[in-house]
């Protein structure tokens, strides 16, 4: 049993990505016909519940189908995430598409099962033993005979179940999978032909605009419909509990009417203080406590340690900040609904929309259409509810696209985190105990059939978010659970050799909706672990790379580190740089490493930066990333994910932070939620791909983003001797830290 299988068997739960189980009525996951269909003319159609969000998985899945079924890549017709057609594979999230569909189950196994079944059929039809047949180019061939897939099945179904013993094709023989096949969607995208969900147009379609409350928790008091009477194109004001929206014939008419509509709200409770939010989090009661790991001897080891070190870190709420306003189109006619949505979970939208609309789930059809990149739970789900409710109210198809402010003020933010690290060192500087404690606010999550209130529209419609259930003290730690990299990679139970480890997580109530944002909690935990590791190395005047290797035992993580160090030409010396300048631009380098989710990708990153000592501005010059995600399915797609993840993480590390005042979120456009743009001085990014065909397929969409913030923090320290423990690393914070350290 390999590591990943072991962890899965131990019952690892990805709490950030709740699985609600199979939605009743979804196609059987075990039936081959749920995954693959061969037409009488030989056309191959594959069905997948993992969708393209810009990460390249559509093309990679088509490669997988072509490879395993032995058909030309161009002949594969792939259909994803349509509740009338495709299997229910829960969400497309959490770097789970590659492991789910490229290992020994689901789509990969279905294609292998289908290939073997076709060979058996050919054997019977041609009178040739299976051992003398092979599948090539959509045909089964022997030395002298051949027959096409279409002829073999004659347009019939397979009527087989997935065969767990079906053999995957040997990676050494791959001709399509593992190759840098260009994405099939990009030509249409760059020429304006591609249909995003924002481009869906349905005959007779109207346009809806939501009127959100002025502040979290505000309740609807009254709506004065006369305030917009006579405005052109207005069809209806839709109110339901605390939900308010306007439907009009044209989008601009809906926007104007929604702006002008007089709505009275009863204010919500005061928001927590923005300044000093980290300390506020730690004081919150009640808490929900989870002890992830406890060797039971941490206090004793800390008491006996030669040195004890502590470090407190803070990461703010951040946004998905999709560049396009989230959008959906719903057509609710009587007791039937058709919905076009950019959601990451069509099946949960089907059941949740049925709840909201009072329809049977079987009568709700949800079709995925790509929105702009979501990076997790952006506004795609909530806007789908907006469209569904307004369409039902007018009995016509309604399109809703959120305004920039409605998107930014009400999305489910990535979690803020306050983190405390403490280690005990022996006389030789080895870590003998690691104590990690964190506080993170939570409200809502991905919405499901019984929890539409996990996003703002559901709450406005009267559904409560999933309940916050206090629990303190935590029950004893159960089976090993990496839980979002809460456990440092250096723990003996992880990839390292530190035997005494205690990890305690406190969830507290959030005033704002929260939800998974690319590398949820993994980024925050890794920021603290990897910066703190650097703090320890610096204290001991040890090289940060060497000090990490000293505490790591698992070869894949060690290899990721040594490979990145080699590619980056890492010079062994302690940080900070002894030759650092006192003025001008100070160069620095930083390193970080992670076993993503404990076993879902192994990566390391080196960042080379310059700090402008006069302004505190960071200029990133070069980023080098090593990444081992098992067998590589498409090297160029993997690189694209690594590059984008590194820079998205850089933007989050340097400037992104949700802000608020006494009553409302104040970062509601790109002028006050600071993202890097395409005009930034783009650093050189180099990727070292570590291919391991013999291992399980892992994720690679969230590895580099998990590492960059820690590596930049470490590089700032290397350049200046100033340690940044609070993100984002704005020029003001960098200057203050430099001042405090000198």
């Amino acid at each position: 049993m390999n590591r990943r299988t072991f962890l899965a068997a131990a019952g690892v739960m990805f709490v950030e990505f709740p699985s609600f189980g199979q939605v009743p009525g979804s196609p059987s996951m075990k039936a081959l016909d749920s995954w693959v269909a061969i037409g009488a003319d030989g056309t191959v159609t594959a069905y997948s519940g993992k969708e393209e969000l810009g990460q390249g998985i559509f093309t990679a899945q088509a490669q997988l189908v072509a490879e395993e079924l032995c058909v030309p890549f161009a002949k594969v017709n792939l259909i994803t995430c349509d509740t009338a057609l495709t299997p229910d594979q829960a969400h497309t999230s959490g770097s789970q598409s590659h492991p789910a569909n490229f290992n020994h189950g689901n789509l990969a196994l279905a294609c292998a099962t289908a290939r073997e079944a076709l060979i058996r059929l050919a054997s019977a039809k041609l009178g040739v033993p299976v051992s003398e047949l092979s599948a090539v180019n959509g045909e089964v061939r022997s030395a002298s005979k051949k027959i096409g897939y279409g002829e073999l099945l004659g347009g019939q179904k397979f009527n087989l179940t997935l065969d767990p013993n079906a053999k995957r094709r040997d990676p050494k023989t791959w001709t399509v999978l593992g190759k840098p096949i260009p994405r099939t969607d990009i030509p249409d995208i760059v020429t304006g032909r591609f249909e995003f969900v924002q481009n869906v147009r349905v005959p007779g379609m109207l346009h809806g605009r939501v009127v959100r409350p002025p502040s979290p928790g505000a309740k609807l008091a009254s709506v004065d419909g006369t305030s917009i009477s006579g405005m052109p194109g207005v069809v209806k004001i839709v109110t339901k509990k605390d939900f308010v929206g306007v439907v009009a014939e044209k989008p601009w008419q809906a926007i104007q009417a929604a702006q002008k509509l007089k709505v009275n709200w009863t204010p919500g409770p005061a928001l927590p203080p923005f300044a000093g939010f980290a300390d506020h989090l730690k004081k919150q009661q009640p808490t929900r406590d989870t002890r992830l790991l406890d060797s039971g001897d941490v206090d004793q080891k800390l008491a006996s340690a030669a040195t004890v070190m502590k470090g407190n870190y803070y990461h703010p709420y951040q946004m998905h900040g999709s560049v396009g306003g989230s959008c959906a189109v719903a057509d609710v006619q009587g007791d039937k609904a058709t919905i076009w949505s950019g959601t990451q979970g069509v099946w949960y939208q089907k059941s949740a929309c049925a709840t909201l609309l009072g329809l049977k789930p079987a009568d709700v059809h949800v079709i995925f259409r790509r929105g702009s990149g979501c990076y997790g739970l952006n506004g795609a789900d909530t806007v789908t509810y907006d469209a569904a409710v307004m369409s039902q109210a007018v009995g016509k198809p309604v399109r809703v696209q959120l305004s920039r402010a409605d998107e930014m003020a009400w999305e489910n933010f990535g979690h803020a985190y306050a983190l405390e690290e403490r280690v005990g060192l022996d006389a030789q500087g080895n870590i003998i105990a690691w104590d990690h404690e964190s506080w993170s606010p939570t409200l809502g999550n991905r919405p499901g059939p019984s929890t539409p209130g996990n996003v703002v529209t559901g709450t406005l419609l009267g559904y409560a978010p999933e309940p916050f259930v206090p629990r303190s003290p935590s029950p004893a730690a159960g089976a090993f659970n990496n839980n979002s990299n809460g456990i440092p990679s250096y723990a003996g139970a992880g990839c390292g050799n530190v035997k005494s480890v205690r990890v305690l997580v406190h969830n507290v109530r959030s005033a704002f909706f929260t939800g998974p944002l690319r590398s949820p909690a993994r980024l925050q935990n890794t920021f603290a672990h990897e910066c703190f590791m650097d703090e320890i190395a610096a204290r001991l005047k040890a090289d940060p790379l060497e000090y990490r290797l000293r505490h790591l035992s698992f070869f894949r993580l060690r290899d990721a580190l040594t490979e990145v160090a080699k590619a980056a030409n890492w010079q062994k010396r302690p940080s900070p740089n002894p030759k650092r300048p006192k003025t001008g631009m100070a160069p620095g380098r930083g390193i970080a490493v992670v076993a993503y989710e404990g076993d879902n990708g192994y990566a390391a990153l080196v960042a080379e930066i310059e700090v402008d000592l006069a302004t505190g501005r960071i200029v990133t010059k070069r980023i080098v990333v090593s990444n081992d995600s098992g067998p590589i399915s498409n090297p160029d797609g993997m690189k694209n994910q690594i590059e984008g993840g590194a820079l998205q993480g850089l933007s989050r590390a340097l400037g992104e932070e949700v802000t608020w005042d006494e009553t409302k979120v104040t970062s509601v456009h790109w002028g006050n939620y600071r993202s890097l743009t395409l005009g930034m001085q783009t650093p050189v990014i180099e990727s070292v791909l570590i291919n391991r065909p013999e291992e399980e397929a892992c994720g690679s969409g969230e590895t580099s983003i998990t590492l960059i913030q820690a590596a930049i923090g470490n590089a700032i320290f290397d350049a200046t001797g100033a340690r940044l423990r609070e993100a984002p690393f704005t020029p003001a914070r960098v200057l203050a830290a430099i001042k405090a350290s000198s």
Partner: protein
Amino acid sequence: MSAITLKVNGQTHQVDIDPATPLLYALSDDLGLRGPKFGCGLGQCGACTVIVRGEAIRSCVIPVASVAGVEITTLEGIGTPEHPHPLQAAIIELQAAQCGYCMSGVILSAKALLDKKPKAQKPEIERALQGILCRCFTNARIVKAIEKVRSTGEGK
């Protein structure tokens, strides 16, 4: 409402529309074009970019009446999958897109720059992209794709 003449990608259209409506809505809803997209409505992100009088402008903040009768170029106006513009071809070749929602801003801002300055250097390219947001952060490939077109002189 009033009848307004729009000249888009070489074709003339009459639309009956409130003259204050931002151009974007006329293009995407009255004409059904998929290239220009709503991102912010504030001229901050570039997803709605079109070319008017040689300039890459933000169609989400320009009243439709102000460009009546003026030639407007959108993403679909400069090339097709079969015959892509060199910038579109370079993006395809370098796989310089992830979700791709930002492509109107990327490609049309680069086109407006290279039409005026065929030999624009990297800092000028970055300056032209200053107000364009790609939240997938495909920056490195995008800049490389534009530089590739610049160096071959095929930008027009």
